[in-house]
Structure formats: structure tokens, C-alpha cells
């Protein structure tokens, strides 16, 4: 490692090369020397600082499409719309992974190369840093006055004594005292090793952070379920969720033993102007199927954390309730289905209540629910506010075959219009109802709008890597602070015996201390030089303070 900046600074401290972040020698552009040399050169090139820089830029550039194009994990509907709108080149973009940039192979290649480069750069530095911490500060350069900060003064005592006093005063510095010809004593001191320590912590923490992220992606999962007030809940098992997104290595068994027994109550606090202030979901849950029931309140920004899973409140809406009474007086009470908000501000919602087995032929109530009803200019039901101050429904009632027996999946929020088209399902009535009001069909069946329940979407998340990621992120900041705030600096003293104790012309530039002279009357001339190896900062001021302390003839306080 001939071009090691560490070594070059050692031999010539004036050459204040900022510490090159790479300790690697410059690669030699040559095929000579066989495949081994080629591999070594490739490795050096990959771990060089320039390559790391290029990879950093590539990583930034590769992220850009991920924010400007719609992304599948964030919004699959938007991706489909985009592909429909741009049929030509969106095919190419799709094939190249541009609609899921952060899972694309080329994105992974960029950051993996960057991390390999980082490791290849940091490991040799770790070794170099350990060596630097264990070895002594370098030899004192010949001409101290040429250092960026330099001073000299005269002190009482023989050089060896003065050096001893100086070393005592340089607490916190790593010092080494050496002797030169002619009774000259030198002291070399160094400080600020924490800079490189912080630097290494920072880079190592980034690697740990990536490991933590990968861990979470492989073994984490996310399940979403919609629960209506008063209806039974679910346990943490894959088939029970409305949607489940497992990590690559999640096999679906052995999920955390966790049950949401019920959504007891969903409520919203409103500001005076009618905008929502806080959403609350009162739930009952238990750890394991036989565990005792516990109560908790989920709010925005306040998930429930238990058994390594986190439970979030992610959405809410209304589920209108109906009673269907047949002409013979029998009926079905508390029929309800969640309606999906169509307008996020007023919560005008749409959905369908389907009666598949309880009545023959099948019935479906399809329409809209308004928490705060009003009639629009077109006579249609609209909502003025998300606050359920004046709930109402506008429903179309269909009778016939809903088509669920065919096995084809259909939305629970609407009816299958193909059944309507082929005449299997007929619209028999429409009605706008306030709570308690009912509509009677031609066959005497009465449908009553009873009111509403509320539903909440709850999300169960598990990310086994996130604690590690948090610790790594904390270390990233700590490492950064150390590496950017601490400065590596060196101080050199050359203590020469003064030619004659009574001579006034030792060194005109050096003021003579008239402090307590020891009996021996031996005096020394102390030349001091110093430099900050990285980012000089206010080293000049620190240097002045240190020199002041060194000149102080009073004994060092021991405390």
C-alpha cells in the first residue's frame, strides 16, 4: 500500500492531504499479470472512492422514476390506468420493472454494488485505524515553523523535564517522547481518533441497516381486515384476512398468536368546523385463542403493539343496516354490509347488501349511503358532511339470481351487472329512505332502513427487522456526528536546551518567561507546531489555547 495517504502524511505532515476515504491504491490499467492481477485490479477499482461516488449518483438517479411513475406496491390501480393511457412504451417500462423500481433487479444491483464497494473500502480502513490507534504518533518534522500553526517560547528546566511537564499538560492527547542528538527532546502528540471511529461506525451501521431492511422484507408480513362494529373478529391467520402480503420467506404458518376479537366501537371527534380531529377504534383482542380478552383503543398515530405485531387503524366507513320482512311476517333482521366511501371528505358511500340464502329468489340492495344526507340538483342523494347527523340511503332493489353460484368471484360492494344484462336479475324498486322508513315490494316484502353501524379497516403488520433498523439508524447518526465534528490533529514539540542560562539572545522571537526559575537555572527553547489533518476548522484557536497551557509554569493540577 504505497499510495496510502496514511503513510504519506506520516512522512510529511505538512502535506495535509485530507484523509482520502479510500485506502486503496490506484488501479493499474493493465491486463498483464494474469487473471489474478485482473481480479485484484477490478476489486480495487470497485472499492475505489470514484466508483463509490458514481454508484451513489446512479442510486439517486435510479430512484427518480420510482417517484415519478406510478408504483405497483403503492397504487396498482394507477399503474393499470397509466398502462392503459400509454399502451406503447409502458409495456417496455413494465418489462424493465419501472412500475416497481425499488424491487427491480437493476436497482438492487446498484445498491448491492455500492454496499460491496463500501465494505471493500471500510475493511482495510478498519485495519488501518486499528494500527493507527495502537502505534505512536509520527516523528517530529524538522522544521516546525512551516506547519500551519507554529509558535515557540522559552521555558525553565532541562528539555527532558520540560517534555515531561508538557506531556502531563497534554491530557487527552496520545503522546510519544523521543530524544534527538544534542540533548534535544521531542514530543509528538495526536488527538481525534474518534473521527475515523465515527466514520467506520457510520459505514458499518449502513450495512447493518440494509441487513435489517432485508430481514423485514423476507420475514415480515402485512394483513388487512375490515371489521364492522359488533361483528365477530379474526385471528392472525392468512386465510382470515381480506388481503395478505407476505414476505418472500413467510410460509403462512406460525404467525404470532394474536386475535382481534371484535371492533367494539368506532368513533370520530370533530372540530367545530366539521373536519375530523381524531379517529378511535375501541377493540377487544387476545393473545392466542385461549388468552384472556384485553381492551385497547387504536387511534391514528397510536397503533397497538403486542407479540411482535402491530395493529393499525387504517380506514373507516359506514355499514347501513336493514330489516327484510316477508309477507308472512318472518324476516331477517340486522342485515348490513360495509359501504365503501366514494368521497373521502363527505363519506358518501356505495355498496351492496346481498341476501343469498334467506330469501328465495335472492335479493340485493345496491346503492349509496349518506351520513349527512341532502338531495343534489339532479335529485340524487349526496352527503354534506362525514358526521352522521342525517343518515339516509338511496337503494335499488334487485330480485333474481345474483350469480354467486357460478364460482366466479364478485365484488361485495356491487352487484354483477352481467346478471342484470341477461335478465337473471331484475330491478324491482328504488327508494330513498331515512332511518325507520321502509319500502314494500310488489310481492309484499318490506324492506326497512334501520340505521347504520360503522366499520374500520385494521392492518396487522409484522416486521422482524425494524428494531435492528432503528438501532442501525441511531448508529448512523452517532457515527456521522463523530466523523463530522471531531477533527484529527497533531501537535509537535521540539525542546532544545538553551545555550546559556543568562544569555538574552536565545531567540528574539521567543518571549522569556520570568516565572519561577528552578535552582538549576537550566532553560529550554520550546518550538511548537501543529496541524489539523482534516478540515482545519478553528484549530488555530485550539492551538493557541494548548500553547498557552504548555507555557503555564505552575504545576499541573491533579484531579
Amino acid at each position, binding site marked *: 500500500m504505497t499510495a496510502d495517504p496514511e503513510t504519506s502524511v506520516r512522512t510529511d505532515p505538512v502535506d*495535509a492531504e485530507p484523509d*482520502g476515504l479510500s485506502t486503496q491504491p490506484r488501479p493499474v490499467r493493465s491486463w498483464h499479470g494474469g487473471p489474478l492481477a485482473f481480479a485484484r485490479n477490478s476489486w480495487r477499482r470497485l472499492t475505489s472512492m470514484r466508483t463509490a461516488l458514481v454508484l451513489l449518483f446512479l442510486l439517486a438517479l435510479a430512484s427518480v422514476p420510482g417517484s415519478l411513475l406510478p408504483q405497483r406496491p403503492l397504487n396498482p390501480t394507477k399503474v393499470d390506468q397509466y398502462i392503459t393511457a400509454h399502451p406503447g412504451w409502458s409495456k417496455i417500462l413494465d418489462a424493465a420493472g419501472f412500475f416497481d423500481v425499488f424491487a427491480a433487479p437493476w436497482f438492487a444491483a446498484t445498491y448491492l454494488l455500492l454496499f460491496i464497494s463500501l465494505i471493500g473500502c471500510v475493511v482495510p480502513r478498519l485495519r488501518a485505524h486499528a494500527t493507527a490507534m495502537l502505534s505512536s504518533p509520527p516523528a517530529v518534522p524538522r522544521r516546525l515553523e512551516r506547519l500551519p500553526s507554529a509558535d515557540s517560547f522559552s521555558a525553565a528546566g532541562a528539555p527532558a523535564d520540560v517534555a515531561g511537564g508538557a506531556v502531563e499538560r497534554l491530557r487527552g492527547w496520545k503522546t510519544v517522547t523521543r530524544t534527538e542528538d544534542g540533548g534535544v527532546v521531542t514530543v509528538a502528540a495526536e488527538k481525534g481518533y474518534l473521527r475515523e471511529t465515527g466514520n467506520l461506525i457510520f459505514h458499518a451501521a449502513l450495512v447493518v441497516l440494509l441487513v435489517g431492511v432485508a430481514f423485514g422484507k423476507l420475514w415480515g408480513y402485512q394483513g388487512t381486515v375490515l371489521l364492522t362494529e359488533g361483528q365477530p373478529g379474526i385471528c392472525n391467520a392468512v386465510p382470515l384476512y381480506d388481503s395478505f402480503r407476505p414476505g418472500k420467506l413467510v410460509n403462512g404458518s406460525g404467525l404470532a398468536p394474536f386475535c382481534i376479537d371484535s371492533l367494539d366501537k368506532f368513533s370520530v371527534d370533530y372540530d367545530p368546523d366539521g373536519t375530523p380531529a381524531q379517529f378511535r377504534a375501541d377493540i377487544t383482542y387476545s393473545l392466542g385463542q385461549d388468552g384472556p380478552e384485553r381492551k385497547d383503543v387504536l387511534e391514528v398515530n397510536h397503533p397497538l403493539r403486542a407479540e411482535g405485531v402491530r395493529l393499525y387503524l387504517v380506514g373507516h366507513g359506514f355499514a347501513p343496516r336493514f330489516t327484510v320482512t316477508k309477507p308472512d311476517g318472518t324476516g331477517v333482521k340486522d342485515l348490513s354490509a360495509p359501504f365503501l366511501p366514494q368521497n373521502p371528505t363527505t363519506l358518501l358511500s356505495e355498496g351492496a347488501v346481498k341476501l343469498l340464502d334467506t330469501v328465495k329468489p335472492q335479493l340485493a340492495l345496491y346503492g349509496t349511503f349518506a351520513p349527512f344526507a341532502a338531495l343534489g340538483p339532479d335529485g340524487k342523494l349526496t352527503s354534506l358532511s362525514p358526521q352522521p347527523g342525517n343518515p339516509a340511503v338511496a337503494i335499488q332493489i334487485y330480485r333474481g339470481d345474483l350469480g354467486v353460484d357460478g364460482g366466479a368471484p364478485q365484488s361485495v360492494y356491487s352487484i354483477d351487472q352481467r346478471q342484470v344484462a341477461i335478465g337473471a336479475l331484475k330491478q324491482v324498486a328504488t327508494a330513498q329512505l331515512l332511518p325507520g322508513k321502509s319500502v314494500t315490494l310488489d310481492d309484499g316484502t318490506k324492506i326497512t332502513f334501520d340505521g347504520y353501524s360503522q366499520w374500520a379497516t385494521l392492518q396487522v403488520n409484522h416486521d422482524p427487522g425494524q428494531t435492528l433498523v432503528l438501532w442501525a439508524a441511531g448508529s448512523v447518526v452517532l457515527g456521522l456526528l463523530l466523523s463530522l465534528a471531531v477533527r484529527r490533529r497533531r501537535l509537535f514539540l521540539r525542546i532544545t536546551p538553551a545555550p546559556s542560562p543568562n544569555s538574552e539572545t536565545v531567540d528574539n522571537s521567543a518571549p522569556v518567561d520570568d516565572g519561577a526559575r528552578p535552582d538549576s537555572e537550566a532553560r529550554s527553547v520550546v518550538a511548537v507546531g501543529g496541524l489539523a489533518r482534516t478540515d482545519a476548522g478553528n484549530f488555530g484557536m485550539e492551538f493557541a489555547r494548548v500553547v498557552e497551557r504548555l507555557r503555564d509554569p505552575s504545576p499541573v493540577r491533579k484531579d
Partner: protein
Amino acid sequence: MPVNAGLATLSDHMFTWSIILYSLALVAYCGEYAFGRRGKVASTSPEQVLVTAAAAAPGHGAPAVKSVSAPRKPPRVRAPQAERFGRIAVGATALGLAVQLTSLSLRGLATHRVPWGNMYEFSSVVGAAAVIAFLVVLIRLPQVRYLGMFLLFPVVVLLFLAGTVLYAPAAPLVPALRSYWIAIHVTTISIGTGIFMVSFVATVLYLVRRRWEVLVEAGRTPTRFPVTLGARLPTTDVLDRMAYRTVAFGFPVYTFGIIAGAIWAEAAWGRYWGWDPKETWAFITWVVYAAYLHARATAGWRGTAAARVNMVAFATMVFNFFVINMVVSGLHSYAGLS
């Protein structure tokens, strides 16, 4: 709790006054710059510049100490008017800052929340952070005082945009923002942004000065506009150090801000990182600033190239603030614009 309309109006008035005071300071800085001709040019005549530039050329760390102290040796002849203008400028800046901080506090009091919940308020905090960062730089490097005009110009533009295009009336926060994390995440991000803004200004001036030095060294007289400013700018070394130190301070702050955002996102959205457009651009900004810090320590990238990287980094930050907030939709849609 209802918004206190009286305090909100007062806050808006104070905001306008802070822009007026900053504009006055801007004029005064221009005055210092204009009247400082004799003093400034005498202390940095081309010959001397070349001496200091040559001294600064070989490395970054150590010679910096020398070249900073070099211009101090001949007692600087500063025109008295320049000195007067400079003091007025700093005074007006400080007063403007005080008024602006009052405006922010009043908005907080009026709405019973931290006053950085939308783009208008966030811009105001960023502007205040940039001014504070500049005043702190002045304590360390008093010789760059007259550069205040270059900093206050973007600050005034930003605040003007905030008060016109981005303005949002005082209102409570949406439920998702009602968390103590807003005080941690948004504060650190806005402080980081303000500091980066100071660094950006220093970097632009660095490039101007650099160009000027190259021309003068080649024996030519700079005639084109931005380059001619170089004659009265501090040496490239001072500007480079100013740019670096501000990034070195702002980067950990910004990093912490992103991490605080991730912790908040974990509590609010169910995941600490989800490549929301805002998060993606924060990541891009972070990576480019990291590249700047590395570039500054890499042979062949030091100087002009590193300065350009710093400019790109700030550009990504500006893009994230304006374009992502106003054009691209995502989870961070709290601009308060409709």
C-alpha cells in the same frame, strides 16, 4: 379548539413586516457591498488573491488557516459607509428574524399547534433557519458579512412565495399530523433545509469566484456579469469551507430528521419506509449530499466538481419541496393548497 382569528391576523402582519425588514437588510447589504469597494478591493487585489489562491491550492485542510489569516495582516481599510451599511444590514436582519419568529409563534398560539403544518409555515421556518444559520456563520467568519445580500435574496424570494402562492390560512392539523413527532421530524428537516440553503449560496459564490480566479490567473479581465462579482467575493478557500462546514452541520441534522420521519411513519402508516414520493426524494437528497461529502475528499472531484454536486443536492431538495408537494400526490400531501 377554535382558531384564534385575531392572533392569526397579527401573525400574518408580522410575516409581511419580516419580509419588509429582510428587504431593507438586503438593500443595506448591497450598500455595504457597493461602498466597500475601496476596502474590499484593496484587501483582495488580484495579486494578493493569486498569492492566497496559490497558498490554498495544494490542499484543503491545513493551508486554510494560513490563507484566512493572510488578508488580515494588512489592517483592512474599510470605508466607513460600508461599515455603517453592514451594521444596519445585520441589525435589520436580526430584527426581521425576531419579527418572523414572533409571526411563527403567534400562528402557533392561534392554532394551538406547532406552526409548521403546511407549505407556507414550513417555508417560513426554512427561511428563519437559513437566516439563523447565516448569523451563526457570521460569528465564525465575520469577513463574509456582506455576503448577506446573496443569502437574503433567496430568503426574501422564498418568503414572498410563501406569503403569496403557498399561503394557507391558519387552521388545525389533519388527524394524521396530530403527533408530537411533527415537532421533531418537521423541525429537524426544516432546520436542515435552511442550513443547506446557506451552503448552496456559498457554493454558487464559490463557483463564481473560482471562474473569476481562473480568468485573472490567465491574465484576462472578467467582463461577463456573474463572474465580475468574483472580484469582491472572499477567496474560493473561504467559500469552500463555508459550504462544507454548513453541510457538515446540516447533514447529520437532516439525517436525524429523516430517521425521525421514519419512526413517525412506523406509528402513523404502519411502516418505517414505503418509498412514498416524498420519502424517495428525501432519500435522493440524502444520497447526493453524501456524495458531496465524499466528493470533497476524493482526488479529481475536489473543488468545482464537488461544488456542482452540492448544487445538485440542493436542487433535489427544492424539487422535493415544490414539485413533489404540489404536483405529485402521495402520503405527504399536507401542502394546505387546494
